[in-house]
């Protein structure tokens, strides 16, 4: 009964979506340059003025980290919430829970650990490259943070979680996750300190050494907030992996 009902609802939603796009005169074609989304003054402004406003060639990054930087700050907060929420819900204290997985007597496999020793530094440098290059090519704090987080997860998979926690402890992960938001919001506060609106990085050229113009201040402001995003994403990725793979014990693991 419920399955049939669910089927009917799904069918109706599908019908609705089909109705929305089926009207050729009404729904813009794929990639249509005259569609409202592409021809609107906003899109035109982004295309022509991004480079003037902030010297950033990748306008996707400029929209993400500057024009709509406030959204991105709260997306970072969402990541932070995910980490804290999973910690709050599944974390159990080490003493009163049965041991699961992870046999201490197993030596980590030599081939795997040797490969990881070689790979991890490369992954981490690539993560920093993705972060720093977000201005001119696809990339940025979220992508860089995920790659950086993957390097710690790789250590946890190849050795065990305790080894990884030795490099990047649980408390450090939570602290770095919060620090990322403080970095991001701190750039916003710095602009308020000079009497401008929150996250108006342009004014921070008075603060940053060696930055002459508001445009370059926007450029470096974006890099700064991306660093904050990376801190949060890296730590939360690792934290979530550790918590879920050990059922909240943060020890032993897969």
């Amino acid at each position, binding site marked *: 009964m419920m399955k049939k009902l669910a089927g009917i609802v799904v069918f109706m939603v599908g019908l*609705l*979506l089909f*109705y*929305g*796009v089926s*009207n050729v005169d*009404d*729904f*813009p074609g794929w990639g249509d340059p005259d*569609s*409202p*989304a*592409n*021809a*609107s*003054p*906003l*899109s035109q*402004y*982004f295309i022509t003025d991004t480079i003037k406003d902030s010297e950033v060639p990748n306008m996707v990054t400029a929209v993400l980290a*500057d*024009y*709509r*930087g*406030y*959204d991105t700050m*709260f*997306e970072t*907060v*969402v990541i*932070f*919430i*995910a980490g*804290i*929420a999973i*910690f*709050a*819900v599944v*974390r159990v*204290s080490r003493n009163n829970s049965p041991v699961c997985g992870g046999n201490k007597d197993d030596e980590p496999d030599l081939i795997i650990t040797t490969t990881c020793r070689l790979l991890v530094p490369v992954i981490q440098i690539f993560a920093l490259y993705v972060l720093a290059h977000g201005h001119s090519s696809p990339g940025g704090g979220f992508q860089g943070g995920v790659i950086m987080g993957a390097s710690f997860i790789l250590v946890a998979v190849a050795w065990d979680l305790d080894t990884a926690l030795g490099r990047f402890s649980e*408390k450090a992960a*939570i*602290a770095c*996750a*919060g*620090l990322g*938001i*403080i970095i991001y*919001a701190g750039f*916003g*506060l710095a*602009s*308020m300190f000079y009497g*401008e*609106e*929150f*996250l*108006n*990085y*342009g004014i921070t050229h008075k603060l940053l050494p060696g930055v002459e113009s508001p445009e370059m201040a926007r450029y470096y402001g974006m890099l700064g907030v991306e660093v904050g995003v990376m801190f949060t994403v890296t730590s939360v990725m690792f934290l979530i992996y550790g918590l879920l793979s050990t059922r909240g014990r943060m020890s032993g693991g897969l």
Partner: protein
Amino acid sequence: MSEHSPVLLMLAPLFAAVGCALLGLRWKSVAYPITIAGLIAALYFCLQTLVQVVDSPTHAISYFLGGWNATDFPRGIGIEYRVDMLNAIVLVVIAFVALLAALFSKRFVPKETPDREPQYYTLFLLLATGLMGMTITADAFNLYVLIEVASLTGYALIAMGSRRAAVAAFQYVIMGTIGASFYLLGVGYLYIKTGSLNMIGIHDVLLENGLHGSPSVFVAFILIFAGLWIKLAFFPLSAWLPNAYSRAPTATGCIVAPLVTKVSVYVMLRMMLTVFGPEYVYGELAWSGPMVWIAIVAILAGSVMALGQSDLRRMLTYLIIAEVGYMVGGAWLLTPGGLARGESLYAIAPGLLGTSYHIVSDAAMTLCLFLAAAAMINKTGSGRLEDMKGLFRRSPVTMACFIVGALAMIGVPPTCGFFSKWYLVSGAFEAGRWEFAIALLVSSLINAVLFFRVIEYAYFGKFPEIDSTHDHSEEHHQEETVKVDENPPSILLPLILSATAVIAVGLFNKDIAGFLELFLNSVSMGGGE
């Protein structure tokens, strides 16, 4: 500094939340004071914003984040905060309710979520941040991001309770995610057709390009409203609510029950009046007939299901569903042919004043009832109605506050519940929808039955049909020896404040309604700004 108060009211709880998470790693006990300080600061900035809005000549102020203002750049380049009389009041309500719920939580959080107080308060503060952000923003996508913030924290705060709470939270996660996805999909359709995410920008493009007949805009409308109705637990879509709210940890129930559905109702009003515009919602669609009927079903279903509950908190959660029916129905009341005559918004949709006033009054009375219920359960150790016996003697102050909340829910003057029903019922008569007025009155009667049942248990102590003679004499003996055993001040103070708020919102109903009328008069009716 005061021109920054619209963003500072968000930053105060945000920084307090991060502070809780970081300092809580070292010192667990700092979480509570940081929370209170953050919420007091938020309330201060909310009041400052309200004063600014009242003082401004247009009764609306804008704050452009990142400095992407509408004078030097096309509107909608960046994110805009726009505060008018409606959301200025809702902001104050959110900050006030969150502060009282936080004050109230002092005893419950260490008991129910031991060793995780810093995380609990981090999520608590971020929930308040998310709700305030949903209210203040003038950007349809920013709204989505903050719905995410408010929902994720809500799921986690509910799941931190017992095992049963985790199951209920999981149902809520599924339903809430579907709702949020529908909303986002709808915003996507709107963006394709308008090229803007700014609420005023969308509205202007819809008018200028004559998009009211567009099928895409129609699909966007359905998707956005289906999503919002899930979020605000409009009756057929409300199955997730009772379990999630009644099994949640005590302090969680006290913040999510008064705020989450009410803020979602506010978002629905904003979508109706600012984004799609009354000329689309009341003119092009004019769904008043079926919508009011669904609302009537919601009111009656919520009330009747509340009758079947034997647990106090669970009973209150069903009343929330009925109250949502009041607000949605009120928003869709429409006078016949009103739009064609080109009258003011107030004459076209006479229920809007009742709906917006009810957001404030329902937040106050739900807070009062949930705090009172938690305080009563703190004394009895169980939420079952039968266990409330003799509570009047043991905790007279707690029960007095409960009665204030109950009278408001029933709709007795001078509590706020009376005035919101008054505005809604008079709106229903102006719109000629007597069936909606009858549903409101029936719901009031059912509420009276519900609360007198609780009061009967608590005042008369026992049910003679259940107790055998032996038990009877024993009970009698016990009752004589019962001494006043009142809740501690940390519980009583927020409870008394919330009961005061219920009466204050009622006594100052003229002023609040006056403010809300300023908002309703400022809504553009087809002619742009």
